[in-house]
């Protein structure tokens, strides 16, 4: 159970999340990508926590990340719903009123 494989998994998940965030037009799909990236970070935290003498700081931080992610998801989805009501679409390329 080498740490490298966990770190590589985290990196892979992060990059997959990044790819999803960048390529998807739908806002909810983008959110899914963000969740993936957060989980990749969590994985790193928990993995290093496994080799930590105290063993708990990483886990506690992971807990907080999960909590924040939940808050983020709630607010983000609220925004998406509102945006959908306003623009009648959830496609990010069409929600560009602020472009220069």
């Amino acid at each position, binding site marked *: 159970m080498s740490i490298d494989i966990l770190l590589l998994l985290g990196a892979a998940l992060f990059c997959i999340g990044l790819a999803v965030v960048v390529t998807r037009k739908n806002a909810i799909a983008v959110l899914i990508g963000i969740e993936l990236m957060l989980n990749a970070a969590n994985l790193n935290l928990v993995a290093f926590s496994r080799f930590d003498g105290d063993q708990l700081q990483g886990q506690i931080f992971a807990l907080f990340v999960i*909590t924040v992610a939940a808050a983020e998801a709630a607010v983000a989805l609220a925004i998406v719903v509102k945006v959908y009501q306003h623009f009648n679409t959830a496609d990010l390329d069409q929600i560009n009123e602020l472009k220069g």
Partner: protein
Amino acid sequence: MEIANIIFYAFIGITLISALFIMLTKNILYSAFALIATFLGMAGIFVLLGAEFVAITQILVYVGGILILIVFGIMLTNRGKTTKVDTKIYHKFYGILIATGFFYLLARGISTADFGGMAWMTNSNSSPSSIRHLGMKVMTDYVLVFEVIGILLLIALIGAIRIAGHTREEVEHVD
């Protein structure tokens, strides 16, 4: 090969495959469901890493909370449609290029750093964790952060309701 290792790699496999599926599928609903698999796989890895409480929280919050929200979001943003809830894709080439490039760099960095060979890694005692110990830590050393996180959640909750719900004028208008 130990049974634990097999399970460990199995979880890694589940996580990785479902994550890749998320990346490859166009259907948002499918990707949401694939996300469940990813979360579950990760929860398994967490358990194997001795972070049972995190794993449980992961399942509770992500699978029970966030995914439900996402599914609701999908449904709310595709009202009245009977077709598949596909998302359009763009930036395909650059996105993949950046992702793979970044992954290459990270992988190269991880392999160069060689965490596994470090002294504090090899000397660490991997005693089994206890949820009680975690609870003590949270309520003592990290109590301030805990409270702040609570308030943050509350604010997020209120904010989400405020954003997604009807404004006062809209309420009056409805009445």
